[in-house]
């Protein structure tokens, strides 16, 4: 029964205009965003161009830069934060300012005069062969020296406290602290990144991450339209009662609708990924690198499938229980909050976001550091999708029984079982 219904649902969706609009939107987004294949440039010793910038690993520098930033914001009582991604200028009350002052005193040993104590970073910009300096804005920031007995762990605890006082999403959140001090990458750093892209990521994994990052943006929202359309179709064609009275169980009917929508949402992604995959294979062949040919498939299933499953389930649940426009509105707000969380940080923003960001086809070390978060995140959304679908089946069944929806009993063949 299920497979018969599944095939029918797929056939229905393949005949609907909205599915083709969805496909057009996905393809347009792929073409405009992912674009052409870019090769990795191998760093050369003594090259004129910079090797790029990197987050500093020097704990003293991280502490100094963060404290200088905190002292500056404390003195102006104007803190920059991105609680849900949007810029927020936080002005603290007197008591909260006092708490920040206490943190600054504990971390620096100074009661006042922070501005005078801030000094410029001693690190110099790298020189090119003709002795000119390569300058990149925003790195080697001013430093406020931390107290001598301040350990890095204690410093992190203080900064977490400061972030909580500010309301979250500030430069003092434990994830953001290390980005406060940036420095110039060396040849060795750049070579390590290049090698990791070739031999750890085997080219295709990095490209698959970038693919999923972009496609995740549209899949975090557009599938809800398929779910809402499917739910409203019965109402539109006034076929609800006819379907309610059928022999098929509520689980079978809803599962067939859900899995067909999921199948037809995910399949085009596999097709779209064929081109970058073939490009990876060709590029790998040129460099003599063994490419992971299943990378795109694995990333689509692990990254995009739970996201799509959640968006569809949420769409089915809300449109069945509240109504189509409400489902769309809720998903739009959820999408906006997810896409904005993390502010300007586009690489390695995972947390519990529906739309994790990894807008870089390299940065293998960052990926490995957030991989655990990513697994937990995707499991959460897969679990929520199951819950929402169970809720949808329940509501649908209650409507069939006549308990919800203001109609009489609709069952002819089935009375109790779902």
């Amino acid at each position: 029964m299920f497979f018969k219904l599944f095939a029918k649902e797929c056939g229905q969706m393949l005949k609907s205009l909205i599915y083709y609009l969805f496909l057009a939107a996905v393809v347009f987004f792929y073409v405009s965003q992912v674009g052409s294949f870019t090769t990795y440039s191998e760093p050369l010793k003594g090259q004129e161009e910079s090797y790029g910038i990197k987050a500093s690993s020097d704990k003293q520098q991280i502490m100094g830069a963060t404290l200088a930033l905190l002292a500056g914001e404390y003195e102006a009582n104007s803190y920059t934060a991105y609680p849900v991604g949007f810029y927020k200028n936080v002005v603290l009350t007197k008591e909260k300012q006092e708490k920040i002052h206490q943190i600054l005193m504990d971390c620096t040993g100074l009661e006042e005069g922070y501005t005078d104590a801030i000094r410029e970073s001693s690190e110099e910009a790298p020189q090119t062969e003709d002795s000119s300096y390569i300058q990149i804005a925003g790195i080697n920031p001013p430093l406020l020296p931390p107290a001598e007995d301040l350990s890095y762990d204690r410093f992190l605890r203080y900064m977490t406290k400061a972030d909580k006082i500010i309301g979250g999403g500030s430069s003092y959140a434990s994830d953001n602290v290390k980005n406060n001090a940036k420095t110039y990458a060396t040849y060795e750093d750049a070579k390590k990144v290049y090698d990791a892209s070739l031999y750890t990521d085997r080219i295709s994994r990095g490209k698959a991450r970038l693919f999923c990052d972009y496609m995740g943006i549209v899949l975090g929202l557009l599938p809800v339209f398929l779910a809402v359309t499917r739910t409203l179709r019965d109402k539109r064609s006034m076929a609800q009662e006819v379907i309610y009275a059928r022999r098929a169980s509520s689980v079978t009917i809803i599962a067939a609708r859900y899995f067909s929508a999921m199948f037809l949402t995910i399949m085009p992604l596999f097709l779209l990924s064929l081109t970058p995959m073939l490009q990876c294979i060709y590029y790998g062949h040129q460099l003599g690198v063994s490419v992971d040919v299943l990378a795109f498939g694995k990333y689509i299933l692990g990254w995009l499938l739970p996201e799509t499953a959640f968006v569809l389930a949420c769409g089915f649940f809300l449109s069945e229980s509240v109504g189509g426009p409400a489902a769309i509105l809720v998903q739009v707000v959820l999408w906006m909050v997810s896409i904005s969380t993390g502010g300007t940080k586009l690489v390695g923003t995972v947390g519990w976001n529906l739309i994790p960001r990894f807008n870089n086809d390299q940065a293998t070390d960052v990926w490995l550091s957030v991989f655990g978060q990513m697994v937990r995140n995707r499991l959460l959304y897969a679990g929520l999708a199951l819950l929402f679908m169970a809720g949808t089946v329940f509501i649908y069944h209650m409507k069939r029984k006549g308990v919800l929806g203001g109609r009489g009993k609709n069952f002819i063949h089935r009375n109790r079982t779902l």
Partner: protein
Amino acid sequence: MERILSIEIEHFKNHYAGHLAAALLLSLLAPVIMGMEALNQYQAGQILDVYFSLLGIVLLTPLFMPEQNKDIRDLLASREYPLRNIQLLRLLQAVVILAVLNLLVLFQMKLGECTFPFGTYFWCAMANCLFLGGLGIFTYGITDHLVIAYMIPVFYYICCYGAGQKYLGKFYLFSLMTGDLENKIWLGTAGILLTAAGIVIRNRKK
């Protein structure tokens, strides 16, 4: 006048209260979600561009929803009072509500000591809303499908998040964030034209 009032009240009571509630909730939640204190003109522009624009989709797009059912449409078409006029009255209600909510958000920002040109930003926000809403009304007019009518402006909005500026040119939505006001004239004009075209197309259909 009595008839006009009656149409407006009935529409509001039976079809529009839910949309207004959603739009009001979004407007009141704006300071909680984004913060509206001490913003400069670009940051204030970001709130209007990225957040407030969505209200255009919420409030304007469902213009033809009351007569979504063909039978009701036929019934309304058989009445003496033209259906087009009823739609225009609904549109007026939506635009007035949109303007009131726009003022509400702008006053919230002013109370938060944000710096921005009040009048200019009011019209700029309205232009964005009219464009997205107009796109929805136009799509609704062509397809007679509410979900598609929501989908097209929402997708347009998503595109603006991506490489929109490059492809959308003068119709790029988030231009206040960069201080570009010229786009809003284009967006507002296009919004009015799309709305008008949507109503004409819808009423030509049998």
